[in-house]
């Protein structure tokens, strides 16, 4: 099986790119692949816990937790998160925070890298 590194820089609310990226990660994991998932820029919005779910807005905490339980390795850019006031105490359990070199290191062993830029 292969390893897929996904980087997504789009916001959770205001874009559907994170929805797509999480669905793609789910499909890859279901096929037995390893997936590293990096969020940077506005994408770090994904890391905040206890976001209220409305039908009009994307809400990915539940599927993300299910994927993490299946082995999804998900990490947020710490500087991007801190710049937005997304501190560690409001970060979803299991959601890692690292500097940007983590993403680059993940690409080293990736068979494919899918990078989805920001808005």
């Amino acid at each position, binding site marked *: 099986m292969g390893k897929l590194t996904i980087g997504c*820089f789009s916001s959770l609310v205001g874009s559907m790119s994170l929805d797509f990226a999480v669905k793609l990660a789910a499909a890859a994991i279901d096929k037995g692949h390893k997936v590293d998932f990096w969020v940077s820029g*506005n994408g770090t919005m994904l890391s905040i816990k206890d976001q209220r779910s409305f039908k009009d807005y994307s809400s990915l905490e539940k599927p993300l937790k299910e994927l993490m339980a299946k082995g999804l390795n998900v990490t947020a850019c710490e500087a*991007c998160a801190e710049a937005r006031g997304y501190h560690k105490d409001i970060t979803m359990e299991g959601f890692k925070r690292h500097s940007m*070199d983590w993403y*680059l*290191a993940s690409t080293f062993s990736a068979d*494919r890298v899918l990078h989805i830029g*920001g808005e």
Partner: protein
Amino acid sequence: MATTKLGFIVQRPPYKSENPKLALTHAIASQSVEVYLNDGDIVTAEVAFIGDGVLNCLKDQKATEHYDISSTESHIKMSLLVDVKVFVCKEDLAKFGLTENDIVMDAEEFGADMTVSVVPFQEINKMMEDVNHLLFF
């Protein structure tokens, strides 16, 4: 010992979005990636500005003066300082009526040896074929 080459392609203009600066900060992060890898393994980064992205390279940017943030220009210079290769598309530069005189070409004041390469798109295309992974910003 192995090397993974990453190509960062910047197509968007500066300050309209965060993307160009994120491309540069991620490329600069290639300098510290070894902490996650085995001895001898490295990740290299090359950055190419194409299309509207060439506007990121204009010199004498006033981002600090107007927005109190670091400029994209300073990030390009920092990239040169850490030996990241920086390419600018010659044809796209010409479309804006710009020449090498209008853009940041070096970071001598920081002590950088690396300089910006203004090249035909054909060379950027070759770079894109040579790298292991492409990241579009």
